[in-house]
């Protein structure tokens, strides 16, 4: 019996409701006390093209929603059986909706896989009069087959729909669930070993999507203005904040384009409001010029970037980490900014708060760089990991009227761009008496007035660089890069963002085979913590850089600051799918085979 350890995939066509099926199942399993992680794989299409969602569950923490191999497939048509058939493990399961094509053709039959046929759509249409409810019929079939408790499941479904759509819809969904359950009970003979059971005394968790965590982080951090232009996979943040911000005196402006989005946000930030803009690669490209402006006029802004497959429109709904070059180096002129990257949903929450604090403390744009996998998938997080305790709002050298008065009294004048030792200047906001200055895109003197004086120019440039490359770098304020795994391992791995998930799982799996690996999770991508990075690489024989893009962008960044390039092994991928633990394990073994 394989209990409470399952990789389950629902696959259909866009518009089919596969994602709904997945959502309902997840909710049930979550309430049964299991830990979950999802991996949604959908096309840039509203209806018709193949779509699927993988849900992984365990009775303990799970890092990531995807594996090379699959236990369970719920397929709404034969096309989807074909697509996923070979991902199934021996002993795996297929639930196939045979409403349209009664039988699967021989080439779709594997001996080592268990098949269950159920006319889901037909039951929904003919017995329930509503085709889309086939998703819940499917839930019924799967629940039965997985040996779940009927009453408990029914209760969860009822509650789920009741909260969202009321009594009537809740009842009809329960009805659909029961039809599925009963069909299975009457017609299907359980042959497989998979079982999902209630976990006693389960840890309390949130089941939450990265974008949802970022939006919450923004609210808690005091963000009161967002302006963005919709784009997958970042839109959720805009939509959530459109709904939530007004509750707290905030404003959401759907901009006419990305150029205006970032300039709206900048205007609010200049006026003293914590502000952000959110986007993905194409929008980031369009925001380039303004990022440079914000470096120049030292306006704090959080730029949330959920990466997807590029270049250009590319693979608009698929994951990739190919905007790193641009995040770090994009824009004309010398325009250093801070780039930070959370590796999981918990960090997405906390590092959003960091981003706002860093932006104001260092009076700079901060890019919060994530990716489609973290942004759009849900993960179980212990409730104590997302709390408001310990949250600090640090506004840096933003002056109150009193502080401003004091400066003027003491120094006779207020200079917004005062050249200070740490490179950070006192900051006033419009409306304050005595705080007048010009936020200038031209090089400027200390009061903000345009200058072309070479000495002042050099001093201003030095100041701007100093605050990022020295003050911020040494401050301890930047999210620390973390070392996971086995410190004394001779193989190291470096990655950032979602690859944290598959790498952590690979480390566990390898450890169970006796292979020790260590992992440097980079959380501040710019400016790089050179010392920690160098120490990490120095102390390993070989270091594998997990780089989800074609040009090895992360490896390139590392090569700039670490000069023993031979130590680096690059593991690349750019086919629109996330790394899996298996791929990383394989690479580690390969490298091990020729190291020492």
């Amino acid at each position: 019996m394989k209990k409470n350890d399952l990789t389950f995939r629902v696959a259909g066509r866009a518009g089919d409701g596969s994602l709904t099926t997945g959502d309902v199942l997840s909710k049930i399993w979550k309430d049964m006390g299991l830990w979950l992680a999802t991996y949604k794989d959908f096309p840039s299409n509203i209806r018709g093209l193949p779509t699927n969602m993988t849900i992984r569950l365990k009775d303990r923490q799970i890092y990531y929603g995807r594996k090379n191999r699959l236990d369970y497939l719920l397929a709404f048509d034969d096309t989807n059986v074909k697509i996923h058939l070979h991902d199934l493990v021996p002993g795996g399961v297929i639930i196939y909706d045979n409403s349209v094509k009664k039988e699967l053709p021989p080439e779709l039959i594997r001996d080592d896989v268990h098949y269950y046929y159920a006319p889901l759509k037909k039951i929904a249409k003919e017995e329930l009069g509503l085709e889309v409810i086939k998703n819940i019929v499917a839930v019924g079939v799967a629940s039965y087959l997985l040996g779940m408790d009927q009453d408990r499941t029914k209760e969860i479904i009822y509650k789920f729909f009741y909260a969202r759509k009321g009594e009537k819809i809740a009842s009809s969904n329960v009805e659909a669930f029961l039809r599925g359950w009963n069909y299975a009970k009457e017609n299907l003979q359980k042959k497989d070993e998979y079982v999902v059971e209630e976990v006693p005394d389960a840890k309390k968790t949130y089941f939450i999507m990265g974008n949802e965590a970022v939006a919450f982080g923004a609210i808690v951090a005091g963000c009161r203005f967002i302006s963005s232009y919709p784009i997958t996979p970042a839109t959720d943040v805009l939509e959530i904040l459109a709904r939530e911000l007004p509750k707290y005196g905030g404003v959401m402006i759907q901009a006419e384009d990305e150029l205006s989005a970032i300039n709206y946000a900048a205007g609010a930030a200049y006026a003293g409001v914590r502000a952000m803009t959110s986007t993905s690669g194409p929008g980031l490209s369009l925001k380039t010029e303004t990022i440079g402006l914000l470096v120049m006029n030292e306006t704090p802004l959080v730029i949330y970037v959920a990466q997807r497959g590029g270049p250009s429109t590319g693979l608009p709904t698929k994951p990739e980490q190919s905007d790193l070059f641009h995040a770090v180096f994009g824009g004309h002129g010398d325009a250093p900014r801070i780039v930070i990257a959370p590796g999981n949903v918990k960090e997405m929450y906390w590092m959003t708060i960091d981003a706002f604090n860093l932006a104001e403390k260092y009076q700079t744009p901060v890019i919060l760089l994530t990716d489609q996998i973290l942004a759009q998938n849900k993960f179980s997080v212990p409730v104590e990991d997302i709390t408001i305790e310990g949250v600090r709002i640090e506004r840096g050298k933003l002056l109150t009227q009193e502080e401003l008065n004091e400066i003027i009294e003491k120094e006779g004048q207020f200079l917004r761009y005062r050249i200070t030792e740490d490179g950070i200047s006192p900051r006033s906001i419009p409306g304050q008496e005595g705080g007048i200055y010009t936020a200038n895109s031209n090089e400027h003197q200390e009061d903000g007035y345009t200058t072309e004086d070479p000495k002042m120019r050099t001093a201003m440039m030095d100041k701007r660089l100093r605050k990022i490359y020295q003050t911020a770098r040494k401050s301890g304020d930047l999210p620390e890069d973390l070392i996971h795994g086995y410190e004394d391992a001779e193989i190291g791995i470096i990655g950032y963002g979602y690859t944290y998930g598959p790498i952590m799982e690979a480390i566990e799996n390898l450890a169970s085979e006796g292979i020790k690996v260590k992992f440097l999770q980079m959380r501040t991508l710019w400016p790089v913590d050179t010392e920690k990075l160098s120490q990490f690489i120095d102390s390993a024989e070989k270091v594998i850089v997990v780089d989800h893009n074609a040009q090895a962008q992360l490896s390139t960044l590392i090569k700039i600051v670490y000069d023993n390039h031979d130590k680096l092994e690059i593991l690349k991928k750019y086919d629109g799918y996330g790394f899996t633990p298996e791929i990383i394990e394989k690479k580690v073994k390969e490298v091990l085979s020729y190291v020492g």
Partner: protein
Amino acid sequence: MSVKVKLKPTDFDSHFPTWCPGCGDYAVLMGLKRALAELGIPPHEVVVVSGIGCSGKISDYIKAYGYHGIHGRVLPTAQAVKLANPRLTVIAAGGDGDGYAIGGNHFLHANRRNIDITYIVMNNQIYGLTKGQASPTSLPGHKTGTSPYGVVDYPMNPLMVALAQGATFVAKTFSGNAPHLVRVFKEAIKHRGFSFVDDISPCVTWNRFNTYEWYREHIEYVDENRDYNVHDRLEAMDKVKEVMSRGKIPVGIIYVEEGTEPGDEKYRKLAGGIAPIDADISVKEEYLEYLKQFE
């Protein structure tokens, strides 16, 4: 916005302009100082957001909070300043290139949003700072650096676009007529909603065709002996069209819509009337409500 303090135009003095002698932008700077002083708005409650161009330098030359941004992005910034803090008087300012060429999209949409700011375009029908290229308002046939054989395209019609897009205050004035300009600026600033002022601001260095004299010959004041209803959008459009069809330039307060709720107020209303700058951002228990959905 209420009259608060007794102010003089010189209270807004700052760095001395580096514009060419005779440039129309001087009148705008002076007019703005006068309008603000007469309205009694103290410098620290004024924000001047400007673009890049000779005109864009205005935020360097007036004592007020300034935002000398990048080329073409004046309007989003200015609108957001007002959305963030409604107590500020926000003036957006820039050139015809800045506002109608690279900034055209924001102009299109600012008219729709009707945020309570004043937008002054110093329209000299040329790119001044980059030394004399055609702008969207340059007239067909005009020979410039980028139109050696004369401008080919139909000129942009900012007044009509503003009217078409729902603007609630549309005016045109002339740097050669300071009293008119001051009056228009004052009305524009007082108007509650997006106030659009296209100011004819001759470039004496690069536009030797559209000179002060040329403008004097072509201007037709529509607000002297007004013969249409200034509160009727369609009549205003008709008027603009009619004057232009005679090869003239309509100058005056062209259209005013009163009583329409400014966009920033609408957005504020969604937030219970609280402006972002006044929002409490201390960490609150009530935030936790949000997390319930994920339990």
